[in-house]
């Protein structure tokens, strides 16, 4: 089944069918989720109304990590099997991941202002998210730096693999560094378990963001496939 879809042309036909469906699901879920965010969930006893930022901040943070692991998986796949579709997916994932990371950082710092009193804390999680953003930016830059597309794909997949090996080390070292500089790191959730009334909008928003991610990814992959086709046509013409 997967190898059947691994042909970019067949995949493109599939994309054109799926794309509107995912967008519709995403928007519906978003509206339902927004309803639950503002109407159906109580304020936190400790943080008050600002806890509503959690419903978009946490999904963004999850996806910023998930998209990086997708990129790393596709990179391994593209290096081992040299498959074009993995290249296309990892290339089109990088800007989306950067956007989700940026959204996480911005919404987190807006959340931090009323709860911690500052826009930015050199907490371990915040710092590693920032490093993740820098790595995403590096991936985007390297994707666009080379004139030869296939070369750029290979280089960026190598970089992504180095990144996935190094990210745990960076995370760990930053953890160690921030405990050195700060007496105690601030934990965002004061209670380990969240009330179901808060969990429901969180999950709905997560699924909505997931479908958004899928639909943006599909659009980008379709664009990349078309671009390759254009390049092939141009190449044939010059030959």
């Amino acid at each position, binding site marked *: 089944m997967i190898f059947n879809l691994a042909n970019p042309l067949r995949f493109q036909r599939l994309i054109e069918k799926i794309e509107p469906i995912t967008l519709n699901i995403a928007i519906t879920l978003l509206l339902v989720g927004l309803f639950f965010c503002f109407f159906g969930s109580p304020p936190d006893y400790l943080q008050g109304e600002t806890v509503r930022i959690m419903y978009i901040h946490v999904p963004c943070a999850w996806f910023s990590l998930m998209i990086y692991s997708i990129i790393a998986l596709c990179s391994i796949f593209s*290096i081992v099997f040299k498959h074009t579709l993995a290249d296309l997916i990892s290339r089109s994932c990088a800007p989306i991941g950067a956007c989700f990371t940026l959204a996480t950082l911005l919404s987190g710092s807006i959340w931090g202002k009323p709860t911690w009193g500052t826009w930015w804390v050199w907490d371990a999680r915040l710092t590693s998210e920032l*490093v993740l953003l*820098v*790595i995403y*930016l*590096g*991936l985007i*830059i*390297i994707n666009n*730096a*080379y004139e030869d597309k296939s*070369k750029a794909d*290979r*280089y960026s997949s*190598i*970089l992504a*693999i*180095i*990144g996935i*090996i*190094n990210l745990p*080390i*960076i995370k*760990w*070292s*930053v953890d*160690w*560094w921030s405990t*050195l500089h700060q007496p105690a790191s601030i934990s965002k959730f004061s209670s380990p378990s969240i009330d179901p009334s808060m969990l429901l909008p969180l999950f709905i928003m997560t699924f909505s963001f997931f479908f958004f991610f899928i639909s943006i990814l599909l659009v980008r992959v379709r664009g990349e496939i078309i671009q390759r086709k254009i390049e092939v046509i141009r190449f044939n013409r010059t030959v």
Partner: protein
Amino acid sequence: MGKYKVKLDVFKLVKREIRIMLKNFSIIYSFSTFFLIASLIFVFSVNDISYVKIFYKSIVWIVLIFSIMLVSENFLNEDFNDGSLKELQFLGFSEESIVVSKSIAMWVMIMIPMLFLVPFVFVFFQITLYELISLVITLFLATPSLTLISILSSLFSVQLKRNKIIQFVIILPFFVPMIIFTTSTGTLFESNNLKENQFLILIGIFFITLPVCLMAGRLIMREINK
């Protein structure tokens, strides 16, 4: 037999690299001058000289990272441009041995002279002898991984015609652990317990960086010579 051949290969390649380095000695000279002048400029940017005593590790490390990146760029470029990188591969040297030999040569020819420059920093920054010794040990332990990463970054940019600055952008996040553990090492003699200072972690980081850089270097090298 195979192991013996790899050792011999690396030895031959290192000899070649060092011979090339000795021919254009200006790289070592300019690196050392850059290192000294850049750390001096940092001192001028601080109003109170007593701050320098606190920040000397950060200054030395940041200057070192930038100067290494500047040097490593033309380290591979010349070999790539005159085609000897390709030639070495055709001659049957493995990609790993080329990367290793380049980093060994760079470490021997640039990092070791740099260690002799650090005592000047000791005079300028007015740090104590004990602090100086621990600084030199940190440099000695952490520069191998620094060299490997910078060779990797120059491998990334070797085929770029313009916009060489991206090699700094893409590789700088990977220096984060290095910077953290080198600048936070306590002086050797403050804590008698070896576990408390981070020298061991620096050695550990080297043993993680080595295989990663070799693997990535091999992949990039194959891509370059396609």
